[in-house]
């Protein structure tokens, strides 16, 4: 019961301030070492079901724009700019996948077209409404990560 109230308070704080990273590791505090981020950005595990939605959503992860993923076969049109993500959990461990999501450039190479979802950029001329904001929140990154960890089958 007490826990419930606390969580609620945290949520309220988060949405009220928009870009405060209350309780989470902020994008400038992330420790990415040797292509890995060991610690959860929120201190807890993400929700794989939510992560799946974020993966699909064109205004959030929009991962299907570039990746084929058989597990989401109900959606038409999977892009082919990047490799298929079937079985991706067997190729990268959790800390590596988190690093790819947070800052793809540091793991896949500076030239990669894959967006960095939890980095404050920095491409010039970012639209006002996205300035100073990460593409995904810390929670959303952990949710997508939890979902990616379920992709074990090639």
């Amino acid at each position, binding site marked *: 019961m007490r826990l419930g109230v606390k969580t609620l308070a945290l949520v309220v704080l988060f949405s009220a301030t928009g870009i405060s990273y209350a309780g989470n590791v902020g994008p400038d505090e992330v420790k990415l070492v040797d292509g890995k981020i060991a610690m959860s950005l929120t201190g807890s595990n993400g929700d794989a079901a939510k992560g799946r939605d974020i993966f699909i959503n*064109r205004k959030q992860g*929009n991962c*299907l*724009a*570039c990746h084929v993923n058989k597990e989401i076969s109900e959606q*038409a*049109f*999977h*892009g*082919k*700019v990047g490799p298929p993500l079937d079985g991706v959990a067997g190729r990268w461990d959790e800390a590596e996948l988190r690093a790819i999501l947070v800052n793809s450039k540091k793991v896949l190479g500076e030239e990669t*077209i894959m*967006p*960095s979802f939890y980095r404050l*950029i*920095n*491409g*010039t*001329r*970012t*639209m*006002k409404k*996205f300035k100073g*904001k990460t*593409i995904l929140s810390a929670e959303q990154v952990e949710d997508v990560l939890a979902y990616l960890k379920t992709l074990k089958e090639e």
Partner: protein
Amino acid sequence: MNINIKILSATVGICAISVSLIGQAFADADNDKLVVDGKVITTQAKAPADSELEKLYSGWRFRADETQSLQMDDFENPAFVAVDQAEDQFAMVEGKAGKSCADCHSDVTDFKGLRATLPRWNEAKGKPETLEHIINECRTDRMEAKAWKWEAPEMLGMTALIGLQSRGMPVAVKSDGPMQSVWKKGKDLYYTRVGQLDMSCASCHENNYGKMIRADHLSQGQINGFPVYRLKWGGLGSIHRRFKGCMQNIRAKPYKRGSDEFVALETYLATRGNGLSVETPAVRN
């Protein structure tokens, strides 16, 4: 017998090789031929020596058959409604000088070849000029009429009509002389990563053309068919409108239509298509 089998297997071998070669060459663009009114229009060209691209392909080659076919017949091409209206407009008197375009340019076919060379340097103004600039200069300075907005239906129709006169001719835009600095600026813009998604034009149109990005087949982002009739827009749109849309998709603040930046980008992109045919007015989805 023995020999026969050898020859046979050699033939099979050769077939396999040529199939895989074709497979490679056309993995990106499809292999369709654009024929309009019995006239073949080249949709691929050798890349210029300094090009980053191996081969040049028109955007037409990346579109689905249904979209492609709309461009193969002027009666089906929805852009021709605007082209017909522009023909009437050409003969219409407007402005304080009491003149129509036709009073000074007896026939619109006089503009044959022009589209293929734009943008170009305007010596008197000491600036580069696009087709929109040229038309508006005639309107304001020579007709004493109001300039058309960049994306006005009249401007789109007129640029389509004038562009059409060069259809099938190879694009040959200059990047030397006074255009060099404009071209260089355009090139810098092309390779600059912008927006929250942190991509450059090259991220999609140079490094990934031929691949599907969700439901879209990425092309080289060539501009030889503009203004294009886009089914999504339900009408004609300018080159700069497309630039704007692509920048917004990566969450970057676009430059304004007609801005120095977009004129420079247009110049650079035009030269990336040198050798492709003018296809105005093209049809896109």
